[in-house]
C-alpha cells in the first residue's frame, strides 16, 4: 500500500474543500444540523436507558400487585406472609400509593401520594444527600410528608408548612412538610408526596391488611426469577414484575423507538443527501478543467475517484463530529429553545435536569449514518468526474 500517495490525495481533497469553501459549507452546515438533531435526541434517551440499567441493582427483585377484573387493585397482606415463607426471600415490604388528581390554576394534574413502611424501608445510604431542605421521614413519623421538587414548586410549599388534601368524597389528610427533595432526583420524585404507610392507608381508605403492592427482596438477584415463579404459582390474581421487567419497560419506552423527531431527522438527512447529490453531480467548468489537468499530468481515474470520495469523507467526518459535539453540548444544556417541541410523541424534554449519556454503539452508529450515506451518494458523481476526458475538458 502506497501510504504517501493516499496521504497526498487526502491533502489535495482537503485543499479542494478549502478552495471551494461556499460549496463545502453548503453541505457541511446542514449535515451538522442533522447530526446535532439526532445526537441530542439519542443522548437524552441514552441517559434514561443508562439510568434504568444502573437502577436495576437498586430495585426490588420482584414487585407483586393484586389484579382484580384484569386491572391493578389492592393486595392482601396475607400474601406478604406467604411470600416471606418462599425460600430465598429476604424481605417483603408493603407499599401504599395512589394518585391525587388536582387542578393547578387551569391545568388538571396528577400527583402521587406514596406511603412507605418506615420501619422496614431500605433507606439508600446517600438519601440524606437528596434532601434539599429539611430531612427525610424517619421510623415513627406520622402526618409528615416529604415533597418532590415539582410538588413544592407547584404549591409554593416549604418545610414547616402543612398540606391539606381532600379527596372527592371529603376524606381529608393533613401533613406537615418536613423535607423537600432536590433537583437532581426530580427525574424520579418530582410529582411525589411521600408519607408513612399508615397515613397513606388512612387517606386512601385501605384496610389494615391491604397494600398497593409488595416489594420482594431476595438473598441474591439470580433467585428473582425463581421467586417470581413461586409467587405466580401461589396466587392467580397477582401481577408479578421482576426488576428486569421494570428495567425493560423503561428501556422500551425511552429506547430506540422513534417518534416525531426521528421522522423529522430522517427528512433532514434525505434533504442533505439530495443536496450532496446535486452539488456533486454538477461539475463546474473550473473543476472539469482541474481534473483534466490532473489526468494530463498522470493522475489515474482511480486516483480522481479516490480524491472525490476523500472530499466526501472529510465533509462527512467534519459534519458528523461537529454535529455530534453540538448535539452533546445541547443535550447537556437541556435543549434550550426547543424543549417545548419535544413534548408528546415518543420524546419529550422536561424542565428539570435529566441524565445525558452516550454509549459507544450510539457513537459508532452516529458516525456511520453521518458519513456512509454521504459516501454512497457521492460515489456515482465521483466516478463521473473520474472518467472525464482530459483532452476535451482542457480544450473546452
Amino acid at each position, binding site marked *: 500500500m502506497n*501510504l504517501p500517495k493516499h496521504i497526498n490525495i*487526502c*491533502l489535495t481533497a482537503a*485543499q479542494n474543500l*478549502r478552495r471551494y469553501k461556499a460549496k463545502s459549507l453548503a453541505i457541511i452546515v446542514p449535515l451538522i444540523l442533522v447530526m446535532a438533531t439526532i445526537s441530542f435526541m439519542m443522548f437524552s434517551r441514552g*441517559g*434514561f436507558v*443508562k*439510568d434504568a440499567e444502573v*437502577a436495576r*441493582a*437498586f430495585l426490588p427483585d420482584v*414487585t407483586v400487585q393484586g389484579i382484580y377484573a384484569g386491572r*391493578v387493585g389492592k393486595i392482601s397482606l396475607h400474601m406478604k406472609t406467604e411470600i416471606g415463607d418462599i425460600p430465598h426471600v429476604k424481605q417483603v415490604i408493603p*407499599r401504599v400509593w395512589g394518585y*391525587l*388528581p388536582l387542578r393547578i390554576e387551569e*391545568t388538571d*394534574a*396528577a*400527583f*402521587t401520594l*406514596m406511603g*412507605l413502611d418506615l420501619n422496614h*424501608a*431500605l*433507606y*439508600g445510604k446517600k438519601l440524606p*444527600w437528596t434532601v434539599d431542605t429539611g430531612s427525610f421521614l424517619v421510623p415513627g413519623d406520622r402526618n409528615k410528608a416529604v415533597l418532590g421538587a*415539582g410538588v413544592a414548586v407547584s404549591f409554593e410549599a*416549604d418545610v*414547616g*408548612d*402543612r*398540606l*391539606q388534601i*381532600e379527596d372527592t368524597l371529603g376524606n381529608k389528610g393533613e401533613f406537615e412538610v418536613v423535607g423537600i427533595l432536590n433537583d*437532581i*432526583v426530580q427525574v*424520579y*420524585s418530582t410529582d*411525589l408526596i411521600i408519607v408513612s404507610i399508615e397515613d397513606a392507608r388512612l387517606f386512601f381508605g385501605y384496610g389494615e391488611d391491604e397494600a*398497593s403492592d409488595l416489594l420482594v427482596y431476595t438473598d441474591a438477584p439470580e433467585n428473582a426469577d425463581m421467586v417470581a415463579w413461586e409467587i405466580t404459582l401461589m396466587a392467580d390474581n397477582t401481577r408479578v414484575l421482576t426488576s428486569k421487567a421494570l428495567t425493560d*419497560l423503561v428501556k422500551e*419506552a425511552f429506547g430506540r423507538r422513534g*417518534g416525531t423527531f426521528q421522522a423529522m431527522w430522517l427528512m433532514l438527512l434525505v434533504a442533505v443527501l439530495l443536496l450532496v447529490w446535486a452539488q456533486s453531480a454538477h461539475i463546474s467548468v473550473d473543476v472539469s478543467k482541474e481534473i483534466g489537468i490532473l489526468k494530463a499530468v498522470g493522475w489515474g481515474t482511480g486516483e480522481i475517484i479516490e480524491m472525490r470520495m476523500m472530499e466526501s469523507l*472529510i465533509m462527512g467526518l*467534519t459534519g458528523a*463530529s461537529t454535529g*455530534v459535539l453540538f448535539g*452533546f453540548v445541547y443535550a*447537556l444544556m437541556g435543549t434550550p429553545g426547543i*424543549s417545548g417541541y419535544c413534548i408528546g*410523541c*415518543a420524546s*419529550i424534554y*422536561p*424542565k428539570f435536569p*435529566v441524565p445525558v*449519556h452516550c454509549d459507544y454503539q450510539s457513537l459508532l452508529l452516529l458516525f456511520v449514518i453521518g458519513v456512509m450515506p454521504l459516501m454512497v451518494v457521492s460515489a456515482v458523481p465521483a466516478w463521473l468526474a473520474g472518467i472525464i476526458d482530459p483532452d476535451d475538458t482542457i480544450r473546452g
Partner: protein
Amino acid sequence: MVFQLIKEKNILRILFAIIIFIVLYFYNDRITTNYRQSRDTQMRMAVVNTLGGPAIPIIAQCCTSRNLAEGIYARRSDIPGGFCFHSDCDVVVTPGVVSEKVYRLKVIKKKP
C-alpha cells in the same frame, strides 16, 4: 507526511471536535452517569432504593400506541409516578375528561 496531514485545517477541525467531545464525555460520565463516580447518580439511586422503584414521571409514548387514557405504554401507570400526561414535566397533566372530579390540596403556610 502524517504530521502534514494532521496540520491540514480540515483534518484538524475533525480532531479538535472529537477531542472536545471526549473531554465532555468523560466530564459528563463523572458528573451524571457513572454510579461509582457520580454523586448525582448515587442520589438518584438512593431515591430508587428507598422508594422501591418509582416510574420516571415522563411520558415517552408514541401517539399510535393504544390505551391512551390509562396505562402509559406497557402499564407504566401501574408503577407509582407512572400515571402522567406531562405538559412540560413540571406538572403531570391528566387527560381532560369531563367526569373526573379533582382533589383539593391547600398549603397552610408556617407561621413566622
